[in-house]
């Protein structure tokens, strides 16, 4: 029981991660793939943020009378990672738009068929 | 003082052909100047190589290191008797062959003549590099470059046949050298930490038992240019090349580079003493014997003259391998001598084949009825070459066979003796019919139209008479080559 409840944050991370990863692999729609990719990345953000938490630690802002803080570094790291994720999403979506213009579809199978038939 | 000079000469021997290549590019548009330059430089090379002779006959060994590729692994050139012998042969035949090429290429109006001469010169430079290589790495580099520089020569015609032949040629030569030869070299390096050629061999005491046999086979088959069966198929394939290429490269430079490398590896890498204790040498001996006999039998069935000569070359090359692996001091001498003797004889034969082709466009033996009377000089030279191949006096071929037999008796190698006798008969069986056809059959009996033609161009006739007389001269004055070969006996 402790295995499940004590590590509930990790379980959540794993569930979200797998949901996202599965979406990327299984969906043929290019936009859905990117949605899946986003979910996948979010799970990693959660992983980082939750490991930054120190038990009974306060918000990491220096204050009198508080000597146990949470670790601020993972948050900072993940800020960067979020920025990277946004950029990836933007670029991915831009590519999808261009693909739609070039092929008239965003379904992987259709695109594949069109390239094959050439 | 002398050694300094010879160092420079060694470098010069390799640079001269390269210089020729560069000059040929520059005078591309003027065929006469180009051909004159080729001859002048080839004569200069001959002079260079011959001027190295005195020092080596005195027993000096000169060595020059250019640069170090990997720590402990330099590019080194060393002058030693065997290499000197090989270099002499190649340098001596180059001017003759150039003369012949000029006659042949013009006579047949071949295209891309400039490219032909360039590649030829580069190939010669690589051959010099092989002859003078001071360690296995240097040898290997020149060996590979020789393969590559002869590829455009083999595929000179540029048609579908040439393309296919080129694939076989490169395929076999590169795959054996990269797959086996390189592996053997790396293995040797791993075992000994050196790749230098040393008189007593570098592997002594470093390897034994079955591993030694494996390594030996890696070398013997890795050196695909020696055309030991079943790695021989590239040689008949290479016959699509113009005849001067077949003559100098595929009867002398390339194939001799193969057997030369084998002799070098046996003497300077393994060392004779070590091989005498191993079964491996016997195995190679049997394979060489098998190659001699079966190549001769195949040669019997060939009607195309150049293909018959090619199979004869395969069998003659294995003589050298056989002689070395008898492992007697005298048989080593025989191996060295045979490199020389076969070179002169085979070049003559190929020159004759090319001469017939230029004059009459005939390629098959069955078309040669009575050709001796139309082309007396050519066929006289051919006859001398053939006698030398069979090994009868008064030709050079007799000398090498004589020493080979002596070596075999010395070592009590009955198998080798039997092979030599049997193959001599076979040699006679496939050469005498040609001579008979040429001199004693009546013209006009063969199918096809009667072509009226005379002797080939003068340059060709002069070239083949030169090599034919060299074959005879070598029998009467074998001093220098014998002296060089005898120097090998001490190892």
């Amino acid at each position: 029981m402790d295995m499940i409840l004590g590590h509930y944050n990790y379980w959540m991370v794993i569930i979200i991660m797998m949901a996202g990863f599965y979406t990327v692999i299984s969906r043929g729609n290019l936009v859905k793939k990117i949605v899946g990719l986003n979910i996948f990345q979010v799970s990693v953000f959660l992983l980082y943020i939750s490991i930054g938490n120190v038990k009974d630690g306060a918000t990491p802002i220096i204050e009198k009378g508080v000597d146990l803080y949470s670790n601020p570094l993972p948050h900072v790291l993940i800020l960067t990672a979020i920025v990277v994720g946004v950029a990836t999403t933007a670029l991915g979506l831009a590519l999808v738009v261009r693909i739609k213009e070039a092929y008239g579809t965003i379904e992987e199978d259709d695109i594949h068929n069109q390239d094959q038939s050439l | 003082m002398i050694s300094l000079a010879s160092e420079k000469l060694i470098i010069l021997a390799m640079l001269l052909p390269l210089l020729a290549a560069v000059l040929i590019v520059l005078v591309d548009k003027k065929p006469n100047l180009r051909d004159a330059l080729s001859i002048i430089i080839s004569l200069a090379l001959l002079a260079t190589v011959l001027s190295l002779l005195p020092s080596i006959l005195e027993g000096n060994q000169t060595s020059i290191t250019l640069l170090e590729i990997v720590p402990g692994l330099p590019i080194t050139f060393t002058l030693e008797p065997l290499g000197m012998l090989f270099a002499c042969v190649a340098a001596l035949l180059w001017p003759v062959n150039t003369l012949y090429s000029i006659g042949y290429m013009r006579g047949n109006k071949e295209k891309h003549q400039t490219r032909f001469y360039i590649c030829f010169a580069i190939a010669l430079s690589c051959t010099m590099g092989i002859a003078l290589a001071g360690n296995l790495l240097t040898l290997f580099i020149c060996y590979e470059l020789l393969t590559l520089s002869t590829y455009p020569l083999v595929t000179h015609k540029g048609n579908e046949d040439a393309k296919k032949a080129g694939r076989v040629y490169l395929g076999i030569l590169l795959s054996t050298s990269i797959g086996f030869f390189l592996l053997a070299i790396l293995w040797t390096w791993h075992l000994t930490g050196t790749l230098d050629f040393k008189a007593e061999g570098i592997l002594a005491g470093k390897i034994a038992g079955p591993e030694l046999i494996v390594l030996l086979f890696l070398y013997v088959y890795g050196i695909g240019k020696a055309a030991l069966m079943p790695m021989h198929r590239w040689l008949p394939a290479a016959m699509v090349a113009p005849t001067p290429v077949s003559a100098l490269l595929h009867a002398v430079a390339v194939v001799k580079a193969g057997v030369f490398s084998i002799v070098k590896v046996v003497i300077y890498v393994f060392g004779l003493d070590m091989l005498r204790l191993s079964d491996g040498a016997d195995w190679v001996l049997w394979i060489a014997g098998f190659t001699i006999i079966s190549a001769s039998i195949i040669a019997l069935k060939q009607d195309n003259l150049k293909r018959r000569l090619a199979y004869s070359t395969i069998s003659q090359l294995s003589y050298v391998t056989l002689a070395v692996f008898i492992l007697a001091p005298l048989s080593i001498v025989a191996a060295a001598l045979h490199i020389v003797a076969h070179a002169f004889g085979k070049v003559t034969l190929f020159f004759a084949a090319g001469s017939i082709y230029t004059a009459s466009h005939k390629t098959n033996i069955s078309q040669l009825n009575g050709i001796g009377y139309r082309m007396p000089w050519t066929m006289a030279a051919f006859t001398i070459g053939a006698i030398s191949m069979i090994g009868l006096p008064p030709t050079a071929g007799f000398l090498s066979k004589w020493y080979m037999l002596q070596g075999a008796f010395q070592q009590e190698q009955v198998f080798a003796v039997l092979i030599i006798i049997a193959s001599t008969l076979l040699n006679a069986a496939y050469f005498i019919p040609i001579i008979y056809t040429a001199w004693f059959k009546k013209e006009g009996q063969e199918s096809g139209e009667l072509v009226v033609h005379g002797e080939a161009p003068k340059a060709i006739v002069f070239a083949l008479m030169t090599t034919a007389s060299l074959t005879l001269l070598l029998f009467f004055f074998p001093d220098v080559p014998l002296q060089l070969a005898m120097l090998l006996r001490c190892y």
Partner: protein
Amino acid sequence: MIENHLSLLLVVLPLLAAPIVAVLPNGRLPWAVSTLVSWSVFYLAAWQLMNVNTGNVISYELGGWAPPWGIEYRIDAANALVALIVSGIAALTLPYALKSVIKEIPQQQHALFYAAFMLCLTGLLGIAQTGDIFNLFVFLEISSLSSYALISLGKKRQALTAAYQYLIMGTIGATFFIIGVGLLYAMTGTLNMADLAQRLPELYEHRTIHTAFAFIMVGFALKLALFPLHVWLPNAYTYAPTVVTIFLAATATKVAVYVMLRMVFTVFSFTFIESTPADELFLLLCVMGILGMSFYAIYQKDSKRLLAYSSVAQIGYMMLGIGLGSVLGATATLVHLFNHALMKGALFMAIGALVYRVGSSRLEHFSGLGKQMPWTFAAIVIGGLSLIGVPGTAGFISKWYLVLAAIEQQNWLIVGVILIGSLLAVIYVWKIVEVLYFKATGEMEQHNTAVKEAPLMMLIPMWVLVLANVYFGFNTELTVGTAQQAVQLLIPGVNK
């Protein structure tokens, strides 16, 4: 004073150049600025290598924050060598790019193209320079994102799908990597590679460390296109603009291999790897990759795709050195990393020149061009020989060390695979050579006789690389010397 900051300048210079280039008017100016920047960066990288080649280690603290809290740039011979390759290839690709880009990319995108190129250079150099594992991730994404954009600029519409495919796989790889990093951080509380290397050994038994290691390895195996995670690479190389293919083929996967080396030998250690099945797995995948991908290359009809498959096979060679897990193996990997950049750079440049003249990269369209474009043809021959590993070329040195490393461990299977791989390389290289060398037949005959030699601006960079292939086949002081130096620092505990 400024000298202390040069290592940082190496990364910052192209980073600053990128926005500047982006706002410049289209035309030659963006190209000129990028070229200038890439040359200065190359100069800096050469200077840096000279400084560390003696065994020095440059440590630079970003913003003056002391490691392991602040970001540290820690440059030893390995970093410097990789930085030199990346900047060197960039410095050669950019002069080459001028004509090729004009032909392949619409004019209004030129400034943006060069800006993306600068960003990609920044990212790759950053990966090479940094000593901080999270910073590495950031640079990885900078280089990846810009390379997705660059690839999508290819002329054919397949370039878009190729870029998309790469984006998905690349992001998954990067995310895997970052998961691994997160787990490492959770266990050790540090992101500094040198610091990690010190703290990890006592935790080797821990399962989380194994998980982290697995994530990091898989993540980077995706990035460096280790068989069978290579599917993005052939498409990306085939459809990207020529210049991008040259640059990425010669640098991107190399940098990823370097990271792999750093991870396997410095951050973790080979003793750790041996306790996992990773080393055997690497060897197995490399063997399959080398043989399988070389066979694939033989059957390709498109020259760029042929070389792309050959790249996947060559990555197998590099990873072999890591999988063998010896000093000699790591040396071989570094040497091959350098040499392969030279040969693939030269080959792709030559193919690019053909594409520039013919307008297609299909092999059948090259028929008989050897006569029309002799210099380009010669470049392909020499580059190809180097790829095969013929002595006298850089490729031979790589093969030499790889085989030696395998013989040292008595691993004859690997020896055989390396040599068979070379023979397969003979076949696919000769496929290109034959097409060019023999006379054109059929309809190509008329078409191709009008073709002229490539412009000088393309020939010069191409031949610099070709001559480098020959030079490093004879003089190995820089490659092998530096690699040996680097390996001593990569693998702690190795004595001279």
